[in-house]
């Protein structure tokens, strides 16, 4: 039995939804209101000591850390696999998720917070807000949140976050561009490769294996941030492969708005 603790708009939870849906698994959700500090209730902290979402409960065991939840789901429900077959490709896939866990996630949080959640924090009582800051165990993370709360988009962390995405998009471009559907040898091969690729995803027959080079988690992050930063990101206007990824992201069923909000 699978149960997922979720929160509205939580990008780490969205990765797990995506994996659950791709694998056609049934689960129940329990909603945690992050703005009411429900993530810091003692009974939830027992399951998830960092006080973050998501937490997956699988047959009574708490599985935490969204990247590891996706790996756990792939190992316990291997079909269809969202992990590449070879050890080398797996290490490349894990580099994407590592990149997200150790940099891009922070960038996402700082950008989203300054743009979307800051007003909500302003509407809290001083006491609630102080409680929220106090409850963040990691001092670095607390300092970043206070900075984005106080300075909004002018915070240095937001600027660093945008740089982190520019770098990520460039790396994605480098990884995507050589793939067969763009760069087959001569123009007619290229044309054929592109049209067969286009047909696959417009017909809705795109196999899950098309997600595996990134792993579902990285794919979800990149997609959401492509949507978020699209109007301003320099690399996006230059890059055809990122635009294809963006299209892919918008058209994939597991990534529709309902899915990302955990609505089955």
């Amino acid at each position, binding site marked *: 039995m699978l149960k997922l603790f979720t929160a509205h708009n939580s990008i780490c939870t969205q990765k797990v939804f995506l994996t659950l849906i791709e694998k056609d698994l049934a689960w129940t959700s329990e909603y945690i209101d992050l703005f009411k500090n429900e993530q810091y209730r003692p009974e939830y902290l027992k399951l998830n000591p960092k006080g973050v979402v998501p937490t997956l409960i699988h047959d009574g*065991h708490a599985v935490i850390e969204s990247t*590891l939840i996706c790996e756990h789901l792939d190992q316990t429900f291997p079909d269809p696999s969202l992990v590449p077959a070879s*050890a*080398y490709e797996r290490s490349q896939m894990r580099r994407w998720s*590592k990149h997200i866990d150790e940099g891009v996630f922070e960038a996402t949080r700082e950008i989203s917070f300054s743009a979307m959640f800051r007003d909500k924090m302003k509407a809290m009582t001083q006491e609630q807000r102080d409680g929220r800051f106090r409850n963040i165990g990691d001092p670095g993370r607390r300092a970043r949140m206070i900075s984005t709360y106080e300075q909004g988009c002018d915070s240095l962390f937001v600027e660093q976050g945008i740089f982190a995405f520019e770098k990520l998009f460039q790396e994605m471009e480098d990884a995507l561009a050589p793939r067969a559907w763009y760069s087959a040898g001569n123009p007619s091969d290229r044309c054929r490769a592109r049209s067969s690729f286009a047909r696959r995803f417009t017909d809705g027959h795109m196999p899950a294996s098309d997600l595996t080079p990134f792993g579902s988690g990285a794919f979800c992050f990149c997609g959401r941030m492509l949507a978020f930063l699209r109007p301003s990101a320099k690399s996006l206007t230059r890059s055809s492969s990122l635009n294809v990824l963006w299209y892919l992201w918008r058209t994939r069923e597991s990534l529709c708005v309902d899915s990302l909000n955990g609505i089955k």
Partner: protein
Amino acid sequence: MLELYHNINSVCAQKVRIALYEKDQQVKERLLTLQGDQNDPAYMKLNPNAVVPTLVHDGNVIIESSLILYYIDEAFPDPPLMPKTPVARHRVRLYNKLIDEYMHNACTIMTFATAFRPSFLKMSREQWLAEINKAPLKRRAEYKRSVIEHGLDSEFVIDALAQHQKLISWMADDLKRGPYLAGESFSNADCAVVPYILRLELLKLGAMWQAEPAVADWWARVRQRPSVKATVFDRMKESDWAPFKNLSPDPWPKVQALLKAA
């Protein structure tokens, strides 16, 4: 063919050497001094972060020590370094994640605040700043700057100690259930943790686990393990021990005071 770019004292390289020995894999060694050779453009083509280790297997380049551990286990499955049950496998990954996201920086902070600090202080401020600023990972350069300047009084030390305490408490908890961190057999969790416990010992901070006999027992056992002995202790030459000998001042009294105050 396996090639490993590494350094004897690097914690991240130590865990990979332990795993390769456990799998009985021979490697062609490429030793780096880390005194500038990590920033060579040719090396940075393999490892853009300019850190060790880098594993090259039949032409494929694999970086990031935790990912190298997973890779080694997948490419050479026997004997396994990942447990069988999904719950225990998740535990191994949680250890690697704790190390990658918190412990590794915490270890750098403690090492530079104590053992490595004197050699930087022999240089002019401009010289050592230029040296540490060459690193592409900017946040790590900021930690180093702070601890070279302020030693154990740096604002980063308290959190670094808290991360070490967290690791020790995870270990104490897991070792109640079995002789190794993820159960009955030595796993990638043990490979990953050994170098950090060794480092605390080298920094004369072994008293941090004195209240945890299960951790002390584990350490007494794994340090005798052939893989750990051969790839870590037997590889350390006089020059590798040197930074940790005669630590002055002895870090323990200050660390003990910080732990008490926290």
